[in-house]
């Protein structure tokens, strides 16, 4: 189980940058000043990227800790934290 936690840590570590890549490329592809749909609106894309940026960083940090075996022993009570 500890090996699974560690290997999945790499997945979480990479998930952050991948998420941001897809959001930025989606924004570049869909933002269109001439478009009338919500998806063409640059403001919405900026908000979404700003919101997801810390989430993506967070999941990468989580992955890094998982890779460093920080979750091998899960806390059983508050004093373990």
């Amino acid at each position, binding site marked *: *189980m500890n090996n*699974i*936690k560690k290997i*999945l840590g790499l997945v979480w570590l990479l998930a952050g940058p991948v998420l941001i890549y897809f959001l930025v490329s*989606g924004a570049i592809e*869909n933002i269109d000043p001439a478009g009338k*749909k*919500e*998806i063409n609106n640059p403001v*919405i894309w900026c908000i*979404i990227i700003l*919101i*997801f940026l810390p*989430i993506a960083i967070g999941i990468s940090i989580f992955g890094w800790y*998982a890779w460093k075996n920080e*979750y091998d022993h*899960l806390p*059983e*009570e*508050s*004093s373990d*934290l």
Partner: protein
Amino acid sequence: MHKSFLENSCKLDFEQSRTIMLWSIALATPFFVFFGWLSDKIGRKWIMMAGMLLGIICYRPIFSQFLQDTNVKAWVKDESNTSRVLISSDSSRQENNFIVQNVYQYSYNENKFTQSTRDTVYIEGTVYPPLTGLDEAGAAQVNTVEVADAKPLYSNVILSSSSYWKFVALVWLMIIFVTMVYGPIAAFLVEMFPTRIRYTSMSLPYHIGNGVFGGLVPFIGLLLTTTFPADPLVGLWYPIGVAALCLVIGTIYLRNKIDENVND
């Protein structure tokens, strides 16, 4: 999500859609308490994980059933429904199974005319009343309106009694999955974090997470639908994906043990 899907994609009658939601919510809400109670007995983690897993497995089949039972494509094509349907658009695109064309037509026969108080059209910011008037011979007029862009305010796909209660049951089932996760979650989180870091480690990210992941469902759903227009249910992959991520992380990285001391 359920309500807007039933009304926008399935073109379900407004009243039926709302009462389906009301019945489902009323019948499912007690299960928040039930699953909270159950989690006190057998632990919280696996009830929550089961709720997520069932959601992941069942969301698409359930929504697919909604589309199949309302059968919007056939309903739109049915001539007897033309007084209720705004047929529109540019033949090159389809939206949520609704055929969109550039010519908008309301045709009324005498019977439909007298019963069509709900047939209202929203066109470029203007709400048009039902097309009215009888010709000199007393027959209902047939009027045609041509506009560049339009959408119906609502439609009236009416479910039979059995389908209605089937829809209630399906929405109820989806809310049950929610209760399995949300019933135990508050106690689960309180037990996971000691008081000194409970606000920063739990409350803040929990509420941001709820707002962000829930609030972005419409936009991400629209993004997916625009990117992959062939699948009317493609927008569901976002909530399914988030639930799957939580399921994997929760299963592997969290323990089921209840920490009895929540005051430390």
